[in-house]
């Protein structure tokens, strides 16, 4: 059973595809060992920083990373 792309489905009708999230990962090399946060992660952190304690207690920050080799194709 070999798959070329995979998606993560949560029962709360939340659908996360690996492409959308893994695109934030940038290959790090010696020449570019410094990277900056993406707009998406900055936006998420800024939004999360405004949450009150009650909201934080009910919230999980989720990141999905697809590292499975030889399964390079993903859907958004």
């Amino acid at each position, binding site marked *: *059973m*070999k*798959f*070329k*792309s*995979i*998606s*993560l*489905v*949560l*029962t*709360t009708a*939340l659908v*996360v595809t*690996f492409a959308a*999230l*893994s695109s*934030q*990962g*940038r*290959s*790090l*090399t*010696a020449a570019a*060992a*410094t*990277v*900056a*946060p*993406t707009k998406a*992660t*900055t936006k*998420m*952190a*800024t*939004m*999360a*920083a405004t*949450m009150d*304690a009650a909201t*934080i*207690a*009910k*919230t*999980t*920050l*989720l*990141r*999905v*990373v*697809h*590292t*499975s*080799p*030889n*399964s390079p*194709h*993903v*859907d958004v």
Partner: protein
Amino acid sequence: MPIPAGDHQVTITAVNDPKTVVFDAKVTFKGGSAVTVVAEGQLADKTFAVRIFTDDVSATKGKARVIVIHAIPDAGNVDVVTADFKTVLVDNLPFGSSMTLDVPAGKYDLVVVPHGKKDVVFDLKGSKLDADMIYTLVATGKLTGKDAVKVKLLAYVTLPVPGFLPPPIATMAPTMSATMKATMAGTMAATPKK
């Protein structure tokens, strides 16, 4: 992305093929936490696993936080050391594990090597780590076999989120794989390059 804390039935399928399920399990996401779900390994050689790391996104108090995740299934344990091999920041990290360290902001000459050796796998000389940033480094790829894939180090940069609590020290990274390894979380001392 923020999601409601609680139990979720997580199902991973081949794209456009809901019958080809590669992962299906109930996962509990704790409130006030941040997690990284890593799909790693391959189906073909039965190393595929989904591993869940609890990230420390709590306040960094002016330091830079580095989270290292080892996701190369056929690589041995690794160290993260200074390029002069005098200071070991991450020691003997096994596949499927992560380590978190807070360091002073600055420039660092770092390399990733097999545990106890000097064969550089990743050369990170001149890495600039800014204050109050969280750098998640995920080592990926496959070293051996016909399906070997060049190893890469993926970098994700996020901001700390005050109010979200750090994970407990020495938590386990839950996974459906039989090769579950400990996740080590702690704080280590390091000095930036002058």
